[in-house]
């Protein structure tokens, strides 16, 4: 992936020298041309195009914003409800993510969405312990995190 970005950058710089105008707009034009060339010759590269991972990162951001709004509303409902009928609990979330930054990103996303907080990462980094305000079904809560955030992060990191 890093090689593809470097190649694209290189093509853009070569384009700047060919047209002998060293301006940002020429660079952007060269970058787009390089991107088209790389998409054309995608069978030469091992692994997926880096554009897909960029797309996955954008998708992750959108998912995060959506979850942020939805869970903020649900916490607001909890606060303004006259009767306190919540079911707080701490549950363990087994995770398939391996790298440090993936774990950190997942924990930050879980913590930033209201209603859930990561309180501990197990020593072997295979389990996250999460505190949630209102959970009726543990499996459902685990599934919802796994299907949204973990899947999206895995798409970014594995392409």
């Amino acid at each position: 992936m890093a090689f593809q970005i470097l190649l694209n950058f290189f093509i853009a710089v070569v384009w700047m020298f060919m047209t002998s105008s060293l301006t940002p707009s020429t660079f952007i034009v060269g970058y787009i041309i390089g991107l088209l060339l790389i998409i054309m010759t995608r069978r030469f590269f091992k692994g997926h195009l880096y554009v897909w991972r960029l797309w996955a990162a954008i998708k992750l951001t959108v998912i995060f914003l959506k979850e942020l709004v939805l869970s903020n509303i649900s916490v607001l409902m909890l606060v303004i409800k006259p009767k306190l009928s919540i079911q707080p609990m701490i549950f363990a979330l087994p995770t398939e993510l391996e790298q440090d930054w993936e774990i950190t990103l997942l924990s930050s996303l879980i913590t930033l969405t209201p209603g859930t907080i990561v309180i501990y990462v197990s020593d072997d980094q295979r389990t996250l312990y999460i505190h949630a305000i209102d959970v009726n079904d543990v499996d459902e809560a685990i599934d919802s995190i796994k299907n949204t955030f973990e899947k999206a992060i895995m798409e970014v990191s594995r392409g």
Partner: protein
Amino acid sequence: MKTNDVILQTTTKVVFFIIFLFSIHIFFAGHYTPGGGFVGGLLTTGAIVLLLLAFDLKTVQLALPFNFTVVTAIGLLLALGTAAGAIVFDVPFFTHAFDYFELPLFGKTSLHTAMLFDSGVYLVVVGSAITIIQSIGGDD
């Protein structure tokens, strides 16, 4: 008890550079806008202290292999040298000089000897603060 600090450490690896960059910006901003050697030095110290909090003393010493007492001494020498340099040109002690230069990449820039004095202050602040923290923290 050894806990798993993966979130703190990964975040520190990113945030350290942002704080360090901001400290350099504050240091250079000192002439026309708020900032300068002292605040810049303290911010750099803050970045290193964050490293010390996330990792341990030995790791940070491996990563930044400076003797911070020597850093303080270099800073003092730089400040004294800038102040004393004025005597050579037959003007009173601590007289600063400046001029405009055409630098590549920067364009027209005014270079001021107060900058050198400020770097001295910066080095003294970083060196002394880190020395204090390291000698309090390192009991072994």
